[in-house]
């Protein structure tokens, strides 16, 4: 059964839960991408991140990405999970988990999904630096 799971919210993300969702006896290849809050961006020290989402539309856009993944790649299950609110350094901001019969499809779909998520999904990241906080990509 081809199934998917989406979560956008303030709770900690769990790799275990994502893996439990995608794990399947008919899959041999599982690829999980975890995006975490990094301490330095473009030479600036980052203190923490804050994510805001347009949740209903973000879910719609993630759903489109998942449909594309199922169309393009021979995968079994895919879970996409994104934190909102404050994310401290080293903490997980996003998890993309994909299972498939063979590893090639799992790697490709996982990569495709994170690339498209960053392009299209209405979620915004604010970086807290020592000289203030800024919405990434929107700095006037």
């Amino acid at each position, binding site marked *: 059964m081809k199934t998917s799971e989406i979560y956008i919210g303030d709770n900690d993300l769990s790799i275990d839960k994502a893996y439990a969702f995608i794990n399947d006896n008919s899959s041999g290849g599982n690829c999980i991408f975890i995006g975490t809050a990094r301490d330095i961006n473009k030479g600036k020290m980052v203190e923490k991140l804050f994510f805001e989402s347009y949740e209903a539309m973000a879910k719609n856009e993630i759903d489109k990405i998942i449909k594309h993944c199922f169309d393009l790649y021979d995968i079994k299950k895919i879970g996409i999970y994104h934190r909102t609110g404050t994310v401290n350094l080293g903490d997980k901001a996003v998890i993309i988990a994909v299972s498939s019969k063979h590893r090639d499809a799992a790697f490709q779909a996982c990569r495709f999904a994170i690339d498209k998520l960053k392009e299209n999904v209405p979620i915004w990241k604010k970086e807290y630096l020592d000289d203030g906080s800024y919405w990434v*990509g929107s700095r006037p």
Partner: protein
Amino acid sequence: MIIKCFGIAKDITESKDIVINDQHPESVAELRSFLRDSYPSFNKIPEYMVAVNMEYAPDDQLISENDVIAIIPPVSGG
């Protein structure tokens, strides 16, 4: 007509939602003009998108009172 604001757009309008009571814009292009006129800071940020009923909408798309409109500044999730 209610316009949802996110990220930098919320900072510029100082509001989660802006409400236009009469003579609301009739297209995405008109909405952009309205925003430039009402909040000049929209000229200072990178291009933003507009969503109508949770779909990205081109400038010539018509909008009406009951549409769910949102200002989508450059996204930066992940």
